[in-house]
């Protein structure tokens, strides 16, 4: 079977690009001062995450990630940014207490990352002996309509309640015309 030259290198490079995009987008989302840039960082992070899902043999979830997160969640957040103008002032970063709490938060997060990384890297997770299906879209659809049909219906109910609740909450406090 003829293969494209250096295809292994190219695939590895694309994978590293996806992982780097995810981490860089998350850093942009957490560290920039302006909220609109933070939303764009979340978009970049979700694009990289979709690539990682593709490498995890799940193109269905990669599509869903782009559709739901980039297409719906980020756009909704941008609407809220335009309506509520949430600008953080830069002067607050300069004060001693802000620097102190920032360092404290960094220490906590470094400890979380270090602990999880140690667990993931050095624990001997056992691999399964057999797979019951291939994890394709067909298998997902069969599982959704048989084993997980109740959860599937409940998630649609939860989304309906969320929509009605969001409308009800956003309506209160508005002055009558």
């Amino acid at each position, binding site marked *: 079977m003829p293969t494209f030259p250096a295809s292994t290198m190219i695939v590895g490079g694309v994978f590293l690009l996806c992982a780097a995009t995810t981490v860089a987008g998350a*850093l942009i989302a957490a560290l920039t001062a302006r909220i609109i840039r933070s939303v764009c960082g979340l978009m970049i992070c979700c694009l990289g995450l979709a690539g*990682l899902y593709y490498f995890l043999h799940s193109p269905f979830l990669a599509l869903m990630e782009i559709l739901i997160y980039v297409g719906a969640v980020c756009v909704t*957040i941008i609407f809220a940014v335009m309506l509520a103008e949430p600008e953080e002032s830069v002067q607050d970063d300069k004060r001693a207490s802000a620097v102190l709490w920032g360092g404290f938060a960094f220490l906590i997060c470094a400890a979380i990352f270090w602990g999880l990384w140690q667990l993931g*890297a050095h624990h001997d997770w056992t691999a399964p002996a057999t797979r*019951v299906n291939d*994890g394709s879209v067909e298998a997902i659809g*069969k599982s959704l309509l048989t084993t997980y049909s109740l959860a599937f219906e409940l998630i649609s109910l939860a989304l309906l309640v969320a929509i009605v609740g969001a409308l009800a909450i956003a309506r209160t406090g508005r002055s009558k015309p």
Partner: protein
Amino acid sequence: MTPVPLFDRPVIYFTVAALLLAIGVFGLLRRRTLIGMLISGELIFSGASLNLMAFNRFKAPDPAVGQIFVLFIMGLAAAEIAIALSIILAVYRNYRSVKTRELTELKG
């Protein structure tokens, strides 16, 4: 025997997921507006989803379960965003601000 390619090593996915969780917690502690905290919460959701998908791909006997679980996480995240943003808009209408420092009723 060829070496295991980079994208078939679970430790890389675990590392990225742990980084997402750590960055999300950092943003949650550091952000001073409600919308910024919401975005950091989404990063934590993403870290959890990636971790579940990595375990689903490499360690689970039924590869469909993890994908369905992550799909449900995405649905719940969308519902949570809708509710949280409407609450944020209601808060903004009452206080004219979404900065966490200014959302106080009592003096002192």
